[in-house]
């Protein structure tokens, strides 16, 4: 029940009232409150405020508070370093308690007078006073306190025991004493709010803390770096980091956490990044995954993550280049690829998306750089696939696994169209010689290629497979069509291939024996009755004949020979002796070809050569222990036909002209397509589109080549430059 006491006070009476209050303050500060009656004091305050003596009271109050706080702090000046922390915390607590009690007594004054006039509240005055007297007025005390705090932290780092809790409170005090008051007015209902302001803390302590920490970390890191190996150092740093995290959590105010930890990382890792990353060479070589993970985690926090990535790239490149000089380069590459990516999988979860992306990209770039330096890897890859396809001893599933490994490397090859050209040559050889052990695996790889590169690249090879299938069907149908007695004299198996898709050179038009020619004509007739628009050209070099011969004393033999050899032997049915020149004329060949064909025939003694007259004679007394004899010269086997030169080669060469032509056609059609949809584009954007498309599927586009294509298209009037903005191209309908 409040009674409004309307009493008029005289100044003297006010002074007396104030004296009471003043004395009471001092007593409160000294904890001698037994004799005091809070209610009475409250009344005094109430009266003073009500009778408009607020100003007077307030100014006196401030003076008194300052004096009291002075007293309370006095002990700090004389306490020694051990006690300083304790005393500091105690002094502050006393001040807080005092201000609370005082605020209770002068509640009315506070609520009506102070808040209405937006003056500093009692709590604020006490805090400010404390702050000024400890830190601003007396520099000695300030320095003393600062040193005390820093020494505590340093001792803690040196593994000495300190009182965490006390230190935490002390540091928190530095923040608390700077609280700002905010007076909110809601319909004459005043509310006081205290907002945290850490400026003082930052100015006074945080700066010095970071400085000190910096110095400390630097010293420690240098010391340890010099006497430990990199591996030991990393383990040490990791432990120390954990330690620091705990420390920071336990007593450092939250706003400084990240700064201290950053400072730590900077000194231990960032400044020594170069040195540490050199250690990576050893760790990766010996697959010390745990250490690499630790290094990764630390570098992720530091600013030198890029250096980490760069060093890794360099390691990969160096390793690859080393492998390049060995024999099993491709196997080495595959192994390294797997190793690096398994490492990647293990490490990468410790970083965020950006780190993952950078890491992944760096690995890919490193591999791509070495793989695409020249055509060596691409050729090796072809040999690898060829070898796998021909291998009889592996099961299909195992083969697919091995092929997948090679495919990983294939994805990084940039000139995929060059790869395709060579691969097609190998494929042609395999299909014609039938050395491929599993058509299914072949088709599987083809499917993978199509998924990766698009159907333009794999189109020719798919036609090759289709050709084989269709030829099979055609041959069977042809055989059925032959009348039964004709069927017995000869057994034909004809492969019809679409000319552009197979990398087969034109062969010399030999004149075959008339018997064989008849059959050729029959098949041609049959085929053209089914496919009227197509023209057939026979390539004898790739075929083989199984010729049945009967010699003297009923000696029957079966020769597997080339078409030309068969022709030659069949000529001997008519005549006993031939001059070599005659034979050359009959078959429309030349000296070299005849020489190579006759070589085996003479070697096996089927024909006897007469040196002086340069003539040949059939050996009627031919004998051999086996029934079936392979006379076909090795040279006419498929792979020699596919390569241009006649010399023996173990590899294929890239036909550069064909590649450039194909690329030009592809690029021009791509440019026209893009411009058709976009109607107009400027040079840079156009190049970006083209580059993206071509690079991922076919080949890397270079700017001069791109410009040539554009000039070509301008001349053919597919596009024109825009008037006034000459780097923009417009599609011309």
């Amino acid at each position, binding site marked *: 029940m409040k009674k409004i006491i309307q009493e008029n006070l005289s100044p003297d009476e006010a002074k007396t009232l104030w004296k009471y209050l003043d004395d009471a303050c001092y007593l409160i500060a000294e904890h001698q409150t037994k004799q005091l009656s809070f209610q009475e004091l409250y009344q005094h305050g109430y009266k003073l405020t009500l009778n408009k003596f607020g100003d007077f009271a307030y100014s006196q109050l401030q003076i008194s508070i300052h004096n009291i706080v002075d007293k309370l702090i006095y002990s700090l000046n004389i306490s020694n370093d051990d006690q300083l922390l304790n005393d500091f915390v105690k002094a502050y607590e006393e001040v807080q308690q005092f201000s609370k009690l005082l605020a209770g007594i002068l509640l009315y004054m506070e609520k009506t007078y102070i808040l209405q006039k937006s003056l500093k509240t009692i709590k604020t005055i006490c805090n400010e006073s404390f702050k000024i007297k400890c830190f601003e007025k007396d520099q000695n005390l300030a320095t003393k306190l600062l040193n005390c705090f820093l020494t505590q932290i340093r001792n803690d780092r040196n593994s000495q025991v300190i009182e965490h809790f006390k230190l935490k409170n002390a540091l928190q005090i530095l923040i608390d004493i700077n609280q700002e008051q905010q007076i909110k007015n809601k319909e004459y209902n005043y509310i006081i709010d205290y907002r945290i302001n850490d400026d003082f803390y930052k100015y006074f302590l945080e700066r010095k803390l970071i400085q000190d920490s910096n110095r400390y970390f630097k010293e420690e890191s240098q010391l340890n770096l010099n006497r430990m190996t990199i591996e030991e150092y990393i383990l040490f740093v990791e432990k120390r980091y954990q330690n620091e995290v705990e420390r920071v959590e336990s007593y450092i105010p939250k706003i400084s956490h990240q700064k201290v930890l950053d400072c730590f990382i900077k000194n231990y890792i960032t400044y020594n990044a170069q040195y540490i990353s050199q250690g990576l060479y050893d760790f990766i070589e010996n697959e010390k995954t745990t250490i690499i993970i630790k290094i990764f985690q630390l570098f992720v926090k530091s600013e030198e993550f890029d250096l980490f990535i760069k060093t890794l790239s360099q390691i990969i490149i160096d390793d690859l280049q080393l492998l390049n000089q060995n024999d099993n380069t491709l196997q080495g590459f595959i192994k390294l690829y797997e190793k690096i990516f398994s490492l990647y999988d293990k490490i990468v979860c410790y970083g965020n998306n950006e780190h993952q992306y950078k890491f992944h990209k760096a690995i890919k770039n490193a591999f791509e750089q070495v793989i695409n330096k020249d055509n060596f890897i691409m050729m090796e890859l072809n040999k690898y696939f060829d070898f796998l396809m021909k291998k009889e001893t592996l099961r299909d599933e195992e083969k697919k696994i091995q092929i997948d490994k090679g495919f990983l490397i294939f994805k990084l090859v940039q000139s995929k169209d060059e790869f395709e050209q060579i691969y097609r040559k190998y494929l042609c050889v395999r299909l014609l010689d039938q050395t491929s052990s599993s058509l299914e695996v072949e088709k599987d790889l083809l499917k993978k290629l199509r998924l990766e590169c698009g159907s333009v690249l794999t189109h020719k090879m798919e036609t090759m497979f289709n050709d084989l299938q269709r030829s099979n069907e055609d041959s069977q149908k042809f055989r059925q069509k032959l009348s039964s007695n004709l069927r017995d004299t000869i057994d034909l198996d004809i492969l019809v291939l679409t000319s552009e898709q197979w990398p087969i050179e034109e062969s010399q038009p030999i004149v075959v024996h008339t018997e064989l020619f008849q059959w050729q004509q029959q098949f041609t007739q049959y085929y053209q009755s089914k496919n009227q628009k197509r023209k057939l050209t026979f390539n004898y070099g790739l075929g083989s004949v199984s010729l049945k011969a009967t010699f003297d004393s009923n000696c029957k033999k079966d020769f597997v020979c080339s078409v030309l050899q068969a022709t030659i032997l069949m000529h001997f049915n008519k005549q006993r002796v031939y001059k070599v020149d005659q034979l050359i004329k009959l078959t429309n060949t030349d000296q070299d070809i005849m020489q190579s064909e006759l070589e085996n025939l003479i070697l096996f003694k089927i024909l006897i050569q007469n040196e002086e007259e340069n003539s040949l004679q059939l050996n009627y007394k031919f004998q051999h222990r086996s029934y079936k004899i392979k006379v076909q010269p090795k040279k006419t086997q498929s792979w020699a036909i596919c390569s241009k030169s006649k010399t023996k080669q173990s590899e294929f060469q890239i036909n550069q002209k064909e590649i450039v032509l194909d690329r030009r056609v592809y690029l021009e059609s791509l440019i026209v397509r893009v411009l058709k949809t976009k109607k107009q584009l400027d*040079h840079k954007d156009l190049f970006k589109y083209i580059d993206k498309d071509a690079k991922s599927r076919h080949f890397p586009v270079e700017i001069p080549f791109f*410009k040539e294509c554009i*000039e070509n298209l301008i001349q053919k009037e597919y596009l024109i430059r825009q008037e006034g903005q000459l780097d923009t191209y417009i599609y011309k309908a």
Partner: protein
Amino acid sequence: MRSKPNQAQEDIMIKDLQRVIQLNDLQAREILNQTQWNLQKATNYILDIQKSGIKIEEQFKKYATKQSLVIDENGISQFCKELEIDLMDPVILYISYIFKSETMGIYTKFDFLYGFTILKVQSTSELKKVLKRLKDDLNNNQEIQKSVYKYCFDFTKQKNRKDIELRFAQGLWETLLTNTFPIMKQFLKYQIQEKDQKHISRDTYYMVWEFCVQIGEDLSKYDYKNGAWPTFIDGFYLYMFPNHKQ
């Protein structure tokens, strides 16, 4: 005023006009444009020129060949002599441009009729008086320079090809551009080394002009990597700065 005719209608009108008198496509198009594609007006205009151009015709016959159909190179050199200009003087190209003549080395009767009428002269001596003005125009007015330059491509080009030979292009560049754009001197030096390129396409030819105007002496402005300059001009840039080829 009739609505503007489309491509096909224009072609028909040009053909019709060519039946009236022998004139080339360029001249026909020019005249029809002037008369808003009114065939009647165009025909009248041509007949007027013919009527009032008797003196011009006589002038023409002086230079023409024996069959008096066209003026060939001899006639032209005589023409130039009387005008007191060198055969290689760029102003003769400007005059050809005004004539809208079709091929270099030949002037038809209508070339003279039309050209002289446009210039408002009746004889070579009168033309000589106007010559100074023409020369000034050519040297000072960039619009005229550009038009003449572009026109010269078709003027030099043979009928069955879409490009011109390098040596002719070089001649044109030397005649028309080296005076105004000093960078061309080095450009010509570059081309002497360039053996591969035998022909210059229309696009490259036009872009050389743009190159002179936009870049000129200050080659630092040239954007080799992102610019849309033809490869021929890129070659020139690399010739000047061989170490920029990365």
